[in-house]
């Protein structure tokens, strides 16, 4: 019973995914209104030659702050998990 339910839900899910994959824009020809601006203005606005780094640290710098925070939280969590049990 459990297995049948699993199979049905999984196949519906995969059907969704494949539908999405077939309906997307043709591979290699994405719409690019936002990215064209970044490619054109990276050098004059941020002074960096590397557009990806410019996006990571300037245009979407706040995401990077979040990412740094996540890594920080994970490290804190890992150290917390294996701390000593009792105070001596």
């Amino acid at each position, binding site marked *: 019973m459990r297995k049948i339910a699993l199979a049905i839900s999984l196949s519906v899910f995969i059907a969704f995914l*494949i539908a999405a*994959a*077939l309906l997307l824009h043709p591979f290699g020809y994405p719409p690019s209104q936002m990215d064209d601006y970044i490619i054109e203005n990276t050098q004059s606005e941020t002074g960096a030659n590397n*557009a990806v780094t410019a996006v990571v640290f300037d*245009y*979407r710098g706040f995401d990077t702050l979040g*990412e740094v925070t996540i*890594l920080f939280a994970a490290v804190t969590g*890992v150290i917390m*998990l294996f701390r000593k049990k009792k105070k001596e």
Partner: protein
Amino acid sequence: MTQGAPFNVPFLAVAMLIGIAFYIILSQRNLIKLVMGLGILASGVNLFLITLGYREGGVAPIYTNVPIEKMVLPVPQALTLTSIVIAVATLALMLSMVVHIYRHTGSVDAEKSRTMKG
């Protein structure tokens, strides 16, 4: 200008990866395998993001010594970078928890260790 791959093969690969990952997450009882399933799910989504940014014949969006012809989109690459680091952090924390559970119960089986009833 020819169309790239027929039927969007890279997107189908993404669909397959995510499908496999969900199968693993729903069917496996071993915690380590569960975490591996999550890793595959994360890779599938990352692959999806990075394929979105590809432009036929584009070069990496870096001006250093590269003639401008056509560049691939930079934003998906940045998003993927963020999401990879997030996936690493999550997996590290989850694996540590599994190690902790193993040290205390001697088992990584979800059935055995989750004695609590839903």
